[in-house]
């Protein structure tokens, strides 16, 4: 069977499917090109970005922290509700803001005690999300937001 397969593929490709295979190689070239894309992280460390771009699509899935499933009593949609739960249950530790950007001591402590960062990095705990780890770039953005006071901004 495998011998027939190995001879059939080139024969078929050489005849009717060369255009299709060209498309496939073009697709691969596009993916390879895009894989190298990107530069510095200029995304806003704001809850109004983090909630819809990172938290909701990765954490508020229907079997986990959606309003329907409410896994472990945690609902991470919509943004306001997610913020209230994350902060009230100390997954995210907030700091009061001041005109100079907040108190340094509190913000240093907030990064060290916000449980969400340990869960996402699986540091001494299970991984969240449990099916697919987030890129560190996303976790670092959340850390930056926490280090700036974790405001509902």
């Amino acid at each position, binding site marked *: 069977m495998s011998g027939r397969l190995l001879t059939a593929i080139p024969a078929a490709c050489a005849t009717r499917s060369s255009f299709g295979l060209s498309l496939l190689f073009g697709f691969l070239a596009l993916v390879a090109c895009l894989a190298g894309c990107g530069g510095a*992280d200029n995304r806003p460390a704001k809850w109004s970005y983090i909630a819809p771009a990172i938290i909701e699509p990765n954490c508020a899935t*229907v079997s986990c922290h959606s309003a329907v499933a409410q896994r472990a009593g945690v609902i991470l949609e919509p943004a306001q509700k997610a913020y209230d739960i994350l902060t009230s249950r100390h997954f995210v530790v907030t700091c009061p803001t001041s005109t100079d950007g907040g108190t340094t001591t509190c913000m240093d402590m907030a990064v060290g005690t916000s449980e969400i960062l340990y869960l996402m990095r699986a540091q001494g705990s299970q991984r969240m999300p449990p099916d697919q780890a987030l890129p*560190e770039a996303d976790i670092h953005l959340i850390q930056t937001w926490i280090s700036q006071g974790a405001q509902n901004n």
Partner: protein
Amino acid sequence: MSPFLFPFLRRSSIAVALVSGLLLVAWGREARAYPQFQFSSGTTRCGQCHYSPSGGTLISPWGRDEAGDTISLGGDGSFLHGLWAPPSWLALGADIRLAALRNDVGGADSPELAFFPMQADLYTRFAYDAFSLNVTLGARGVVRPPDPSLSGRTSDVGQRMMSREHYLMWRPSATGPYVRIGRYFSPYGLRFVEHIFFVRANTGYNLYEETYNASYGYVDEDWEVHATAFTHVPTSVPDFFGAAGPAENGGVAYGEKRFNKMAALALQTRIGIASEEARYQGGAVGKLWIEKARLLFLGEADFIRQQFSKANFGQSQFVSYLGATYFIRGFMLGAAYERFQEDLAVKGTGRDAYDGELNVFPWAHFELNLLMRYQTRATVAPGDTPRGSLVMLQLHYYL
């Protein structure tokens, strides 16, 4: 097939059907179509094997014949294995899946081992002339319940019952125009069963994210178009309707052209507007069947532009799938590569996945599926692992 085995298999099938009926009220997940069957099974359109013009859920009589005669190694693909045929105005079906998995993403509880009921959905279709009412009823699945025992899994089944599809359709013939109104997945993309694939999870088609739609479409032998206006399931309705995903309103268009019953190229676009987020996406789907090699190539690529109004920020995403599947009757062996780039302007936000899949169809109504998935992410914290893996075995029975 030995004649001595047949009565045994027949009795076994009936037993499985009865057990399936009992399980049906217990657990649920989701089924869409197998796009791998297009061209490879001798059919060119999804709507040939499914009542839905874009594929998925309830199988048509043609599809049931294909299941027994072309895809499986034997058996009768008819409802209840041919023991009883519903009247012409009624079509019934069901999907039951049991799964075992090993999931390794690093962390304290990894690798995770689980055995769980994955899906139990009952499909009904009532037809009158060119009109039909289609309803799917099941229970929302829970992979990781607080109490994983049998009693723990069954105690709240009533609260997890939901209907992820219910729609009215006017479709006077297998080809030609149709109109569909109700809840279902709008036609878009490759429409895989596996919701974890990036091209499903990141384009608005994740698990239970069916929207309320009004679709018009036209299906011909060599081409088809589908246009859909949609609105999200309101969060104020009971959980029976299972609102999930972004609260978007918008539209979807999908057009597919087929060539020589061996290839297809589709273009697609989707716009979804939510209160603080807007998504504009477009892409292409390609399918190529090489008969001599028994190989089917499937590919999809989408660009997504997201605007976050409150954050005053926009980002562009890229999501893709490229796979090949080898067929012989009763078996399907596939490999695929996937990529999701969360923000094209930010290095380190990419994820890759490599999939291997084996499907075995030993007898009509039965399927064994082995999915192996290896994932990587572009950036990790010091000491963390960039890799993750999933091995999942499914036993699938459809009524």
